[in-house]
């Protein structure tokens, strides 16, 4: 009787132990992968062509997604803050709060999540396909280090281009708030802009852009890691893609909290 209870508890604890160990193991592997990849960014040869293509692919082609996300978010934010502010007769805070929320939080986080969906997935699918069709092995046999040729340019490009992308997104988001504020909420255009400028501090912008760089790194890292270690066959690539998007998104949100605490 008590024996079977002990067995159940034992099995339960063993399960927890296994899961925790597996979690730590994969975190460890990810950290090693990241360290190795970063070290390759700084050691020649450098693949500039590949880096340039990734800048286009990750940065330029993400502009529509990030821009639209920011535009609608900025607009919605203006409405919400207006209706919240109205309860304290503080409708006038709309421009400054929209700007601060956009620049410090929503621009980087939503931009990061959208890019995670787009870029992590495509990197994981591309590298995963290369893995299962032995293209990564072929690179190695052609004396080309796949970490250097495939992973390093993507990591560097994403980390550098994400702040630019988010900066543009921030601007568009503030413009979304401006459009709604002036057209729907009766703000005067000049005052709206004046208020935006007056209350926005350099720190707000810089902290947001640092977040963006970290998120860019996360997006590329998890895309590369999952693709690089893709299982065999189409199913392996599918799983790698899903894992890349999910883990990148969760890691963006978690690191966002940590970064926000640091800048607080």
């Amino acid at each position, binding site marked *: 009787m008590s024996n079977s209870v002990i067995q159940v508890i034992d099995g339960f604890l063993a399960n927890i132990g296994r899961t925790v160990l597996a979690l730590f193991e994969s975190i460890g592997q990810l950290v090693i992968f990241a360290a190795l990849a970063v070290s390759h960014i700084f050691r020649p040869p450098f693949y500039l062509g590949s880096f340039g293509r990734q800048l286009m692919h990750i940065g330029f082609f993400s502009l529509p997604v990030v821009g639209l996300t920011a535009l609608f978010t900025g607009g919605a934010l203006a409405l919400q803050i207006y209706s919240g502010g109205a309860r304290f007769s503080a409708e006038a805070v709309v421009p400054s709060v929209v700007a601060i929320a956009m620049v410090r939080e929503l621009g980087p986080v939503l931009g990061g999540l959208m890019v995670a969906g787009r870029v992590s997935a495509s990197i994981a699918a591309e590298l995963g396909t290369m893995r299962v*069709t032995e*293209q990564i*092995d*072929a*690179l190695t*046999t*052609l*004396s*080309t280090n796949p970490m250097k040729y495939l992973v390093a340019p993507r990591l560097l490009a994403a980390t550098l281009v994400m702040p630019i992308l988010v900066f543009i997104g921030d601007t568009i988001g503030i413009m979304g708030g401006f459009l709604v504020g002036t057209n729907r909420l009766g703000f005067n255009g000049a005052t709206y802009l004046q208020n935006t400028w007056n209350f926005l501090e350099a720190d707000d912008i810089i902290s947001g852009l640092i977040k963006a760089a970290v998120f860019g790194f996360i997006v590329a890292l998890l895309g590369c890691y999952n693709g690089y270690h893709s299982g065999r066959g189409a199913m392996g690539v599918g799983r790698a893609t899903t894992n890349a998007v999910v883990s990148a998104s969760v890691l963006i949100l978690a690191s966002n909290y940590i970064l926000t605490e640091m800048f607080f």
Partner: protein
Amino acid sequence: MISIKNLHKSFGDNVVLSGVNVHVSAGHSLVVIGGSGTGKSVLLKCILGLITPDSGTIEVNGINPNSGNREAFLDQFGMLFQGGALFDSLPVWQNVSFRLLQGKHRLSKDDARDIAVEKLRRVGLKASVADQLPAELSGGMQKRVGLARAIAAEPEIIFFDEPTTGLDPIMSGVINELVREIVVEMGATAITITHDMSSVRAIADEVAMIHEGVVQWTGPIGNIDSSGDPYLDQFINARPHGPIESVR
């Protein structure tokens, strides 16, 4: 010279190689035969260090594949992968001359392209293929592009994983001749995996047959018909019945 002693490799419960011994002298051509799934491709990948064996020793000119400078080690190799493994984002000519476009001694694009076109011609492909993407080619054409890539940098050691699978008989003949030429004229050391007995006879100096994780029989090509080994006899005569089970 390639020397493999007592090589073991399992994937989980799947025991693939369990004590393989192979020796290839410099400038010789070894053909590896054996049933589907017996670990022939795994053997080549172990030699290249793409798969880490569980135990056993591998030496290529006295050097272990996973020790020391990987890139310098791999510089002496050319490899045709069973599935081609062409880079699908690069046009054919850049695939073929990939190695020539990397590293310290890289060639100019024009020179590399000229060499690519010349290698393509050797595997029976027209120059017009050079600017196409691998996905636009037929399976057999992709295979031949892979072959051209393997020989482009004129390596000392060449591995061909099923070079003639999926080719028509004439093209198979062309490729057999090419492999033979590479060994005889360039003095390369070659290991070829094939299921095609006419290729075996055309290409091999020595033959090794892998069965159930070990080398079942090995010897000079001249001896394969008189080996007296029931496994080898069944295999080269394509008999459905014999010591090798047909469900594996």
